[in-house]
């Protein structure tokens, strides 16, 4: 049941109608049932994984809370982490590592037939395992009290708007909302509508259109592509993945608002970032914060000197890359982001903006230059991320570096990208300047109506036919 499907909105309508007729406790139970139905629509068999993760983490957290002995507490934490990472490892990484190990052994002349698992990756597995793990770690660190009720905790794990692609919510943020009464206020309705419309626009109009360009380029043998084709393909993918993922997060926020919940912002105009760390403060914020709090800081953060900081950054980003998928390209993507974080830090570029003028033309030239540079670094990362193999990366980079042929079709594709993306870019620039993601909610109603009308007409007329899956469902 995709967010951009009619089925989902019919489901949502039914859920909302019933939900607001129930008292608080029954609202939670009903949402839990609805969330299981939502997830079961993909593959009901994988509900057992969510249930296993829920049961283990609920009881482990109780034990962690009641036990004072640090040694015992560590063991209980290990049970939770092993369960969650075990599920993730078996379903997401086993196949990749088994195949790579087999290949390696074959190369060194010791062929070994390792068992393979020919199973579909459970949708959203990386999201809910990280969410539940953060809970037990928080309880272990005494930063959170364990959940009082199992059904409430189960809802925290599988709350359907954010179940399959985040945001990865923290227990301390979501559970108080689950435990308190909720009602549909005008503000929640209005904000929810805004988030949903913006999310659908980003997903259906921007991402799905850009997907057709990016897919076409990446499916064409590199020998047939010019450098301009490759660049357009990478730009299109950069816009696709942003529209796709931020669109999903926005719809999730909107639906949650309509249910009376406030989910965290997962994106804040990431392509306006000026440095790598700025980018990660704006892109997939919930994962960035998770990696920072539970990995980077756990590794020592920046407390052990320069080289240890670099090591921790690269390790964190590498694992962040692997979180996205089991593949060399994801690994390379993670390492690349780790490296640019280190390079910016080493070169003192992270704080360069503080030294620049804060007003005037010079400020804007500096701002635009640094944002453009960062955008292109991010695009290089997207090339690693999207490519089918490392050899495709090399071939496309070679084409970009050596073949500057420009054809009329390139002009047409650039015009097409501009037609779809420029209005969104202009809107995001305006939001960036105002510094408030809900700026549109504050303007005169006529301006808002014009913006909404534009979105609706674009959704009606300029969206590709058919429903495209969200990219991040595979992670």
């Amino acid at each position, binding site marked *: 049941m995709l967010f951009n499907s009619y089925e989902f909105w019919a489901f949502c309508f039914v859920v909302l109608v019933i939900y607001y007729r129930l008292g608080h406790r029954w609202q939670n139970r009903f949402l839990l049932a609805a969330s299981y139905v939502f997830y079961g629509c993909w593959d009901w068999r994988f509900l057992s994984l969510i249930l296993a993760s829920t049961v283990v983490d609920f009881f482990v957290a109780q034990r962690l809370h009641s036990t004072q002995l640090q040694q015992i507490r560590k063991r209980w934490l290990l049970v939770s982490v092993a369960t969650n990472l075990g599920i993730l490892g078996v379903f997401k990484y086993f196949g990749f590592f088994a195949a790579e190990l087999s290949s390696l052994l074959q190369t060194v002349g010791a062929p070994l037939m390792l068992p393979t698992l020919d199973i579909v990756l459970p949708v959203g597995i990386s999201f809910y395992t990280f969410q539940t793990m953060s809970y037990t770690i928080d309880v272990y660190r005494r930063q959170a009290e364990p959940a009082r009720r199992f059904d409430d905790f189960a809802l925290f794990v599988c709350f359907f708007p954010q179940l399959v692609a985040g945001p990865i919510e923290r227990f301390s943020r979501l559970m108080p909302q689950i435990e308190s009464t909720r009602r549909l206020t005008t503000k929640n309705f209005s904000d929810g509508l805004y988030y949903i419309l913006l999310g659908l626009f980003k997903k259906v109009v921007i991402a799905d259109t850009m997907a057709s360009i990016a897919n076409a380029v990446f499916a064409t043998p590199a020998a047939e592509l010019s450098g301009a084709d490759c660049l357009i393909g990478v730009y299109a993918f950069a816009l696709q993945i942003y529209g796709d993922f931020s669109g999903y997060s926005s719809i999730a926020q909107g639906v949650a608002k309509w249910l009376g919940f406030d989910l965290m912002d997962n994106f804040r105009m990431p392509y306006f970032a000026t440095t790598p760390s700025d980018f990660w403060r704006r892109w997939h914020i919930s994962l960035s914060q998770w990696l920072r709090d539970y990995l980077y800081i756990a590794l020592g953060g920046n407390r052990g000197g320069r080289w240890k900081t670099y090591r921790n950054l690269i390790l964190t980003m590498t694992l962040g890359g692997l979180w996205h998928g089991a593949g060399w390209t994801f690994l390379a993507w993670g390492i690349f982001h780790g490296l640019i974080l280190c390079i910016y830090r080493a070169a003192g570029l992270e704080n360069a903006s503080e030294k620049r003028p804060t007003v005037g033309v010079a400020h804007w030239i500096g701002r635009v230059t640094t944002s453009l540079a960062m955008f292109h670094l991010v695009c290089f990362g997207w090339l690693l991320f999207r490519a089918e193999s490392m050899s495709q990366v090399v071939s496309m980079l070679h084409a970009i570096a050596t073949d500057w042929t420009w054809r009329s079709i390139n002009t047409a594709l650039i015009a097409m990208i501009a*037609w779809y993306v420029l209005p969104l870019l202009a809107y995001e620039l305006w939001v960036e300047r105002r510094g408030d993601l809900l700026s549109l909610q*504050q303007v005169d109603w006529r301006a808002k109506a014009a913006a909404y009308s534009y979105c609706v007409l674009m959704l009606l007329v300029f969206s590709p036919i058919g429903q495209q899956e969200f990219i991040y469902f595979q992670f």
Partner: protein
Amino acid sequence: MEAPTIRHSQSDSDSRIAARLAAANGAPENSVAQVSDQPVVVRSLATELKVIATVVAVVLVAECGLRAVEDSVSEDVRHLKSLRTASQRMVDASQNGELKVLFLGNSITAASIDADVITSRLRADAGISCSVTKVVPDNTRLADWAIAFDEFFLRNKQLPDVVVMGFRDADLRDEPSRHPDRLGRYYCDLADWGRLANNSELQRFTSHVEFLMGNQSVLFANRKRLRTGLLSRLLPGFVAASRAVNRGTMASDKTVSRPNGREENRYQRLLQFHRLLASNDVKLVLLAIPTPTEYALENQLLTVVKSAEIDLLDLRNAAGLEPEMFPDGLHMGHSASAVFSVALATDFKNLMHLPDQRPARSLQGQKIPAIAIRPETNRQ
């Protein structure tokens, strides 16, 4: 009693400032309404309703505007709208005693068949006066053609003598229509919804919604045409770019394994359609149309054709056609269409066992031999 007074005197900006102040002070969102008192909520709801009403009004204006110029949206729309009167041509042809030939297909068939060439050749070579009707909406396949035949000919009891179904590659496979919205708008009435659902023409929830929305909205039913039309006017080179993207997308799709692959296709829909035509004494001829890119006829299709004794005109390699005669790389140009129609008329005449070199004659009141006799030759 004070609240209504405040409600009407408080400006929108006041409400917004109050709400922003409350938010800035860290008040939970749900309490914004309480901090600014109930009137703000009422004001906000009214504002929100105004926004929604404006959006609805804009969409309605677009819908009405498009209804006013619907015929000019595309040639295909005009063609689809003309289908409701297509069966009238059968009546006229019956009265004139002509052989009634109905071509079903999509834009590839539309571009390939030159009705004038076919009628004149049949008249000249076989002495048969024939009437050619084309039902060839864009981007359609067997599912759409069967529905069109049912809606526009079978229901009116105005049947052709022969149905020639032009196809390419996978057009005859057991797949539902790609455009439930267009079915809803141009082929069927709302009353047909249940029947289509029972016949599995609308298999998914999405198809039902699109059928209903297409039935109610011209804007929705023609959204793809509008997009293509507007972008091709606004962006120079858009058509060429779209073709390149489509080629790449098709290449990308080929790399994805399909659970409902060709192996599972059983051509049951084709068999059903054939039986329907046979029960109404209408002959079915399948016509494999040449394209610049070669395509194979599936073994399952050939098996079904053979077992059901369906006539197949395989003109994939029709003589005299060169790739440059397909201007867009897929559809025939005028010169190709003329060449192909001559070849088709000749093969059609042979297939139908029509007599050679006879003067035109009326067939009124006679049983057409080609329909009574099922030829055993030229069949794969």
